[in-house]
């Protein structure tokens, strides 16, 4: 049977007033107790906040939050399959990205004399390569979204060699597959640490082309990293050295308070 407006009003009223009730004395007791619990909880919260914000730091970040980054990293590494590809776009949707970040690019530089050192975990030099060595690897083009840690993003077309192909060719002398790769600019002023899973991903390139043309100096000529799996800060420009490592490599921005992993 359909409820009349009067029945509905009565039902609503009963819903509000039909709840259990207590005496005035009991209300007073509960009020006092609630006051104390609320005060104590606020105090606990304030102390906890102080503990987080003013406690020990780890690379310019409260240690608790650094641990939070590590926990998040473990969670998301376990959730993301190494085969999952970042979304790709039509090349026609791509554009020349803005220039952002000149760390490691500031000193005098002679592109023709550029070489890239390949190092083992102990720092031993495995190879010194030039651009032709990288160009000799199968060329891959991809159009992906470059996401800056600042929040902006642009669709960019990259051309280069897969890092996995590069590693297979030039790091095959290493005794085992190592969990990390460290990258540095020739002057060592900018560094990036990457996990092997992201480096071995098919969309992680040693890029020598952007928008179908050779890289310009401000975008990292002659060779840079390009990967849609991390924020742009990890796509190091003007690679001077690649080092396969068994410990977490140095990372410019991680030392300045950012998450080391920042994986997408």
């Amino acid at each position, binding site marked *: 049977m359909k409820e009349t*407006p009067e029945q*509905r*009003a*009565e*039902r*609503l*009223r*009963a*819903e*509000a*007033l*039909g*709840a*259990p*009730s*207590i*005496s*005035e004395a*009991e*209300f007073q007791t*509960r*009020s006092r107790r*609630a*006051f104390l619990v*609320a005060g104590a*909880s606020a105090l606990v*919260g304030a102390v906890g*906040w102080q503990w987080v914000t003013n406690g020990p730091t780890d690379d*310019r*970040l409260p240690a*608790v*939050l*650094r641990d*939070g*980054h590590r926990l*998040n990293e473990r969670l*998301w590494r376990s*959730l*993301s399959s190494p085969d*999952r*590809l*970042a*979304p790709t776009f039509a090349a026609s949707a791509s554009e020349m990205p803005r220039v952002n970040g000149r760390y490691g690019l500031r000193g005098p530089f002679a592109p023709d004399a550029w070489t890239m050192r390949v190092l083992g975990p102990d720092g031993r030099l495995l190879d010194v390569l030039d651009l032709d060595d990288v160009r000799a690897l199968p060329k891959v083009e991809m159009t992906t*979204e470059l*996401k*800056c*840690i*600042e*929040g*902006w*993003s642009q669709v960019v077309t990259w051309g280069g060699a897969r890092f996995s192909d590069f590693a297979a060719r030039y790091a095959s002398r290493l005794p085992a597959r190592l969990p990390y790769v460290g990258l540095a600019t020739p002057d060592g002023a900018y560094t990036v640490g990457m996990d092997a899973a992201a480096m071995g991903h098919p969309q992680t390139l040693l890029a020598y082309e952007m928008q179908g043309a050779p890289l310009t100096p401000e975008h990292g000529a002659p060779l840079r990293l390009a990967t*849609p*799996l991390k924020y742009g800060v990890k796509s190091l420009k003007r690679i001077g050295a690649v080092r396969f490592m068994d410990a977490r490599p140095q990372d410019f*921005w991680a030392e*300045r*308070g*950012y*998450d080391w992993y920042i*994986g*997408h």
Partner: protein
Amino acid sequence: MADTPPDVPPAGRAVQKHPRAVRWMHWVNFPLLTVMVWSGLLIYWAYDPYRIGWGETTLVKFFPDGFYEALGLPRQLAKGMAYHFFFGWLFAINGVLYVLYTAFSGEWRHLVPDRFALEESVQVALHDVGLRTTLPPQGRYNAAQRLTYSAVIVMGAVMVLTGLAIWKPTTLAWLTALFGGYQAARTVHFVVTVGFVLFFAVHVAQVVRAGWANFWSMVVGYERVRPTPAADPFVDGPAVPASVVPASAPLAPDAP
């Protein structure tokens, strides 16, 4: 007292209003939401393109430099991200627990809008701004409250989902695509944040209006019942039914 339903407690007693779990989750959410908005602003500062306007005309810029300076927000992107991705989990967990609690305890009956909610919310709003004298029937919450308290839960879910879509646009690429892409998800995330801030402003204003008994019931869980004052014979108006009501209900039905 023949017209007083037997289940209505007599004056001098206090009626249960907010279960303990809801009170805890409500008050835990307050600092969590504050931390999320604050750390979100630290992040947003690094790329702050949003505005209300058209062409060259900007009505509202999010945000003017003075806003960031006044709140001490600039140049703390790394810090903002660290807080956001830590406290975001607590915010999400608290929200999920709230939804589970209200669903399984039956509390949702007081909160979910019924089919009269839209029209009655307009009436409540008109009443609250003084354009209407009477209020539609209501239970523990009026129609506007039901709509709002349900909307903020949906907003919280959208915040968590868009947040995940921006945070993990490769691992959760389907989610990012669902919101129309990376930048679209970021825009939704921002707009809903503005919605939360507006909700907070109205919520606090209405709590102040509703008075102390209503506020305190969110701490202690109970609200005193008091007799309805007799209708003033010198003032024209609808006769007030002789019964007892919670202090904040029909007298200040806009209790948030």
